[in-house]
């Protein structure tokens, strides 16, 4: 296959990727978009077999095909079997291996070129190795955090910032060393330091900020792919990598904005955060806590109930139970809707996926802007493991971490029920005044257990 034909087909694959991202940006075309992306990737993979070795069978072709087969055998079942609540960590893992692959590609090409590599190629190689390794090890840490194989809290260590800064300097110096002198050892050291930097860089990030970091590492991996495209002079890799790099950057920004965080704050927040003021005075105030029966009665006689799911619902994996409750209420003639806050849960849009998986009808999922005007006509709001997204402090307390974030105005409803395990605050670490209001009832316990009890109580009524 001629270089021209190869590039031409590569261009077609690149356009598939553009169309894929375009499709993925709109709910109607999202699935088709993803398929177009898969088509582009397939085209690109197939044609390289006809081009790379001038049309002859590739060197190591059997090994390559076996490796692809093995990758499919690992990747597809993982993607098929993962629970929806574990989606974030799977995406992190896939991203990490991609970054690792890009780094390896650059290394092998570097080994092969030896002293023949031009300076610009070496620079691109070093970039790929650094960013690919950071993406790889960083993603592994995010995976461990999300999978709760390690603490989800920010890991802070003495002189943390200094150590991170020193590692970064080491990465840059060893990178410069590779460019200046060439050779395998410097590249190895550079790669190792980059791996360490990736770990250190993600450790201080708190569990709830992890999705932003995943998105950022995703953008990083995109850029490494673009750089290895330059090393290999493959236009398709440049286009695909840059697309992902650019859209990933914007996406990271959008995500951070949606949850009222700055990207910088997310990454370095743990070291600079002032100790959370645990407004001790509040703790002594009385709250109205109820039993599952109380809650069942309140729900039973309501005309309209809005369910507000949050992070705690994902933790408790209570999506199926919540749906059972909603169905039961619907049968009893109660109007039920779900109020979905854009950043409720562990990832943006996570609630939609969780609830959709539990077969909650799409029409019952109502976005924040649309549900807010309906709260005054709502009898009961059932807040299942959510806190920040209904905290009025976002409107009333200038200076608090979530000030300015749009919230669900559940306090406008006649009654509010909170299902949570304790009086502990949510992710942002601030007291929720709503818990102390007269219209609020608290049902303590794991969301799934509590819901199961409420369902039984309702059936018994």
């Amino acid at each position, binding site marked *: 296959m001629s270089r021209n034909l190869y590039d031409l087909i590569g261009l077609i694959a690149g356009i598939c990727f553009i169309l894929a991202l375009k499709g993925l940006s709109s709910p109607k075309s999202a*699935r088709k978009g993803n398929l177009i992306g898969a088509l582009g990737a397939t085209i690109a993979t197939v044609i390289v077999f006809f081009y790379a070795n001038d049309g002859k069978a590739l060197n190591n072709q059997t090994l390559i095909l076996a490796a692809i087969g093995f990758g499919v055998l690992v990747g597809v079942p993982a993607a098929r079997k993962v629970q929806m609540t574990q989606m974030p960590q799977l995406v992190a893992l896939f991203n990490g291996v991609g970054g690792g*692959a890009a780094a390896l590609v650059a290394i092998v090409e570097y080994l092969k070129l030896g002293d023949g590599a031009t300076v610009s190629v070496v620079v691109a190689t070093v970039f790929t190795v650094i960013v690919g390794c950071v993406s790889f090890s960083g993603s592994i840490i995010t995976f461990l955090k999300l999978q709760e194989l390690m603490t989800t809290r920010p890991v802070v260590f003495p002189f943390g910032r200094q150590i991170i800064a020193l590692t970064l300097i080491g990465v840059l110096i060893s990178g410069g060393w590779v460019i200046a002198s060439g050779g395998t050892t410097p590249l190895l050291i550079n790669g190792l330091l980059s791996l360490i930097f990736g770990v250190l860089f993600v450790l201080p990030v708190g569990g709830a900020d992890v999705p932003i970091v995943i998105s950022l590492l995703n953008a990083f991996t995109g850029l490494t792919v673009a750089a290895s495209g330059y090393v290999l002079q493959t236009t398709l890799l440049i286009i695909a990598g840059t697309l992902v790099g650019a859209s990933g950057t914007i996406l990271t920004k959008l995500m951070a904005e949606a949850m009222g965080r700055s990207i910088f704050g997310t990454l370095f927040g743990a070291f600079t955060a002032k100790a959370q003021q645990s407004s001790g005075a509040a703790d002594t105030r009385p709250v109205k806590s109820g039993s599952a029966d109380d809650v069942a009665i309140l729900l039973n006689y309501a005309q309209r109930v809005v369910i507000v799911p949050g992070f705690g619902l994902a933790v408790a994996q209570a999506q199926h139970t919540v749906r059972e409750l909603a169905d039961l209420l619907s049968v009893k003639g109660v109007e039920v809707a779900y109020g979905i806050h854009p950043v409720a849960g562990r990832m943006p849009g996570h609630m939609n996926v969780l609830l959709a998986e539990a077969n909650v009808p799409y029409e019952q999922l109502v976005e924040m802007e649309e549900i807010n005007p309906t709260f005054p006509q709502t009898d009961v709001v059932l807040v299942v493991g959510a806190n920040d997204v209904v905290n009025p402090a976002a409107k009333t307390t200038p200076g608090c971490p979530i000030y300015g974030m749009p919230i669900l105005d559940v306090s406008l409803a006649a009654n509010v029920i909170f299902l949570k395990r304790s009086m502990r605050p949510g992710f942002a670490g601030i007291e929720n005044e709503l818990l102390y209001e007269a219209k609020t009832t608290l049902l303590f316990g794991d969301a799934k257990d509590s819901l199961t009890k409420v369902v039984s109580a309702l059936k018994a009524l």
Partner: protein
Amino acid sequence: MVNELMSNEIALLAIFLLSIFVGFEVVSKVSTTLHTPLMSGANAIHGVILVGAIVVADHAKTTLEISLAITAVILATINMVGGFVVTDRMLQMFKGKAKQNKVKGEDK
């Protein structure tokens, strides 16, 4: 003088810059609901590094080179194939009431 050809470096730079704009513009209006599938789909797209991995596996001579390249092929395949499959699974769940009854999740 005009009518010379553009240099390869400049062409790649132009392609790079234009791709940045396309990437920015295409996703800049996406709704929050789709952030997660979009991230996952973009993630799958960079799995196309598989192409690069295949190329270097073809080049590879020494055992070290071959084993690194083959590892790259495996990792890239996982990224690409797994990424598209998981994104599809996620998006499948966004469907309306009509089609929902036939698929019952494999979640516990």
